[in-house]
């Protein structure tokens, strides 16, 4: 066992002074393994979503609570949940899934205001924030607050009402969670109590699979990157120390490239907002 591990990780005579892990055949094997594992995870996600799926726990109540917390912290009047804006947000989410797009304006030319007007909300001011791929309300609100445009929408005193839609579906061939936030202000004041509405249950998404697929894959990806960085570093140090001449690429180049991939993995594992 010890010999095998040394053969795998330490450059020595048995592996032609190059860690076996870094041999072309092993690099190819890792690529094939990752490729097949990716397809396996994808098919498991489709066939057994309760075992391996995307863990999501987002509710309109929580989004409202967190949004109003931010508004109160910035001395802005809290928003009230509005049934018509919720209906507009649900329609927008359905439209995005139906026409398979991810944008403020639909491919058929529908702006967000079309959905708000069709729900019967006669606004003076209106705004829309979109998010996808997030698993918690905290992450959504945090991402919106970190983006200047979304932040100004969330903290604008021009809005008094809000409606949320949180829906799970397939977008661009991927299972994802869409979050639509419709903000508005009515042209005519209405009775305060009638503005506070129950949140539609369709707006809450809770999915708790046995294994959270994104975290599971992220961990595997990170472990593989670290193993290769460690082996490349070890290989480089030992060979430099022993002053062995070899016809191989520069390990430092590969380490830098894998560090770039690691940072890109960090971006890709987060949800996106527009």
């Amino acid at each position: 066992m010890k010999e095998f591990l040394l053969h795998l990780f330490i450059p020595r005579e048995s592996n032609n002074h190059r860690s076996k892990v870094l041999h072309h055949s092993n690099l190819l094997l890792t690529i094939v393994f990752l490729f097949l594992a990716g397809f396996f995870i994808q098919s498991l996600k489709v066939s057994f979503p309760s075992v391996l799926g995307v863990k999501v726990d987002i509710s309109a109540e929580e989004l409202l609570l967190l949004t109003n917390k931010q508004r109160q912290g910035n001395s802005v009047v809290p928003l009230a949940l509005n049934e018509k804006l919720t209906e507009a947000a649900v329609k927008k989410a359905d439209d995005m899934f139906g026409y398979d797009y991810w944008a403020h304006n639909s491919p058929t030319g529908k702006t967000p205001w079309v959905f708000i007007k069709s729900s019967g909300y006669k606004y003076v001011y209106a705004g829309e924030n979109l998010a996808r791929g997030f698993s918690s309300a905290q992450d959504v609100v945090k991402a919106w607050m970190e983006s200047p445009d979304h932040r100004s929408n969330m903290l604008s005193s021009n809005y008094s009402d809000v409606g949320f839609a949180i829906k799970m579906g397939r977008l661009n061939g991927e299972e994802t969670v869409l979050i639509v936030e419709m903000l508005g202000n009515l042209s005519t004041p209405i009775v305060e109590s009638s503005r506070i509405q129950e949140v539609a249950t369709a707006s809450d998404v809770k999915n708790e699979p046995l294994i959270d697929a994104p975290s599971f894959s992220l961990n595997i990806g990170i472990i593989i990157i670290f193993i290769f960085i460690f082996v490349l570093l070890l290989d480089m140090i030992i060979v430099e120390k022993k002053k062995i001449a070899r016809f191989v690429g520069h390990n430092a180049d590969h380490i830098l490239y894998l560090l770039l991939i690691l940072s890109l993995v960090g971006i890709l594992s987060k949800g996106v907002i527009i």
Partner: protein
Amino acid sequence: MFSNLYKHSGYYLVLFIIFILGFLLAYSNRSNENLQIGIIIATTFFYVLWGIIHHLINHDLHVKIVVEYILIGVLGLTIIFFLLNAI
């Protein structure tokens, strides 16, 4: 490692520029996944090209080295695709 980085600082400056540009473009296009993937593939392509040119200029280019850079590049891309399959 560090002596090599210092000796080839000019080459590594180019590599850093490629990586920083690739990262910033991928980050700023987070809402467009296809474009983001295109940027990552392009960054990997330039990394492989940079590696080949670097070895060519240093007169130690060999077909084994070309294959190695390609395999490391494909490995990086496979990790990205593996992750995208699960998200």
